[in-house]
């Protein structure tokens, strides 16, 4: 497939998958919000995804009415026993194979994630680390950036970073980036024994060179500028296949990642969405603040990943 280089292209490609293989099915926990239903309806109309809507039936009906959505096109599962039950009911639809993607609605994140991690009906995949990825198209750049983990793992140690990296690389490959270039970020591009993340970056680089992390080219440490700008890499005299060309940006911890992503979102012309990776199925964890467009893009990415993992 051709590499997806922007989030508009992502949407187009998800439509194509839908047209060729049929739409994927979302299972939405507490689908009681009009904005959310609009995004889901848009995905349905585009032929990308269908949905099972779990929640209190009457609340879903009110939201659908507000959004102008005809519920005849959806399977609605009435679950009046509270948020925890909604999560379990919704996630069970995915683990039992009735749906492909687990999506968060209005419920609290805790309940939603507890559903995902539930040992019986959840989506745990062995001991695999579950991680979050923000993906961005930024004006002036010819490719999508994948940033991990700015939302789920707080202070990952080296083994966790290796897992996060592998999850993210797999996701980037679903975008048609055949051998993603991974920059392990720090504040500087040199190894400094007093900055532990520069040591981790070296370790990840060597793990890649020794075949312990596959299907990608890892290098680090990098400062953000020399990871994404060839000019900056050149100024620093960095010789690396990743310098200036990174697709995946692995951040050292949740603070650095979160601030970087938010600076990107608020200070640049960009499109941004997110997805949870490493579970048995793609998981969409949107926040109330996300626009319907961002939700739609997350759905498109989840569909892309789900279809990629079938191969």
């Amino acid at each position, binding site marked *: 497939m051709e590499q997806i280089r922007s989030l508009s292209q992502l949407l187009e490609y998800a439509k194509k998958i839908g047209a060729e293989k049929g739409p994927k099915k979302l299972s939405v926990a507490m689908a009681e919000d009009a904005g959310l239903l609009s995004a889901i309806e848009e995905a349905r109309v585009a032929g990308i995804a269908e949905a099972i809507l779990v929640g209190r039936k009457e609340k879903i009906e009110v939201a659908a009415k507000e959004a102008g959505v005809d519920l005849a096109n959806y399977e609605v599962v009435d679950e009046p026993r509270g948020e925890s039950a909604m999560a379990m009911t919704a996630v069970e639809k995915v683990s039992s194979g009735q749906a492909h993607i687990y999506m968060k609605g209005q419920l609290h994140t805790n309940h939603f994630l507890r559903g995902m991690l539930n040992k019986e009906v959840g989506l745990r995949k062995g001991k695999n680390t579950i991680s979050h990825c923000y993906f961005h198209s930024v004006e002036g750049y010819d490719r999508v950036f994948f940033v991990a983990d700015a939302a789920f793992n707080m202070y990952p140690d080296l083994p966790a970073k290796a897992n996060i990296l592998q999850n993210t690389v797999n996701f980037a490959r679903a975008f048609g980036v055949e051998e993603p270039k991974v920059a392990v970020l720090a504040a500087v591009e040199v190894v400094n024994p007093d900055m532990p993340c520069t040591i981790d970056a*070296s370790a990840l680089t*060597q793990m890649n*060179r020794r075949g312990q992390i596959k299907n990608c080219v890892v290098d680090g440490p990098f400062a953000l500028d020399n990871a994404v700008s060839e000019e900056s890499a050149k100024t620093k005299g960095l010789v690396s296949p990743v310098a200036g060309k990174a697709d995946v940006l692995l951040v050292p911890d949740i603070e650095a990642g979160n601030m970087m992503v938010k600076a990107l979102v608020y200070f640049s012309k960009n499109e941004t969405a997110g997805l949870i990776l490493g579970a048995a199925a793609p998981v969409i964890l949107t926040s109330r603040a996300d626009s319907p467009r961002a939700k739609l893009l997350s759905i498109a990415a989840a569909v892309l990943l789900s279809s990629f993992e079938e191969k």
Partner: protein
Amino acid sequence: MMHNLDFLLELCQTGRRMNLAVACPYGDDVLGAVCEAHKRGLINGILVGDSEQIKKKAEAHGFDLKGLSFVDEKNDYAATEKAVQMVSSKDADLLMKGFVKTAVLLHAVLNKEWGLRAGSLLSHLFLFEIPLLDRRILGISDGGMNMYPDLNAKVGIIENAVKCYHKIGVSNPLIAALGAVEVVNPDMPATLDAAALTQMNRRGQIKGCTVDGPFALDNAVSDEAARIKNIDSPVAGKADMLLVPSIEAGNMIGKVLLYMTGGRGAGVILGAKKPIVLTSRFDSMETKLLSIALGAVVASKE
């Protein structure tokens, strides 16, 4: 690539002969080696210590003292200081330890006023001939001075060794940072340091060499082992030097090479203003001569 250590003897015999100040050469091992080295024209021997005692010893063992210089100093500490001072004042070009405790010698070397501090870490490098590997030469550092070097110390050890390699004619030594395995294992700190050193080299923080690691010893020195493990690296199977994680590891590899393979070696302490030759009583005469020669070659290019 050099196939045995004889080139050190040849390098020594070209150019100016280095003056070797030996502190307290009362043991027959060191005294014998210095006399022999002097006779062969590798160095000019300067025997710093109780001249009378030295002469008696030489006579008892039939050593030829012809042409060697004497600096008479009966007290061991004073003789050691004198030998060090001769080097720092450039009356001598390199230092050798005789029958005096290593701690006493190093104490003098590290003296802030007249010692041989150069701002670097002191480290020990040993070069070995490996008859089974087509008489290839393999360096090990540090199996003699630094016990459990941290990452910064390992950088210092590599830097010292690289300067030495340049002086003996290896312009870009291939350095393998050893672990017990060739993969990065978060529970094995040596593998993490090895990875960090590799990246420091790739970022230009360690220059004049190519560093890669972690390696297990086999895939650092054997092309075949590297191939089986599918390791793609310019250093794999071709290492000139093994950076070992601890003094135990280095010491044990070194002793296997020296006593169980039939090869010879040459050792020197690096990182001071001038090299320091420190031999073991059990070293063969050949190994002692080669150590003196290595020190002299390094000294000649300081």
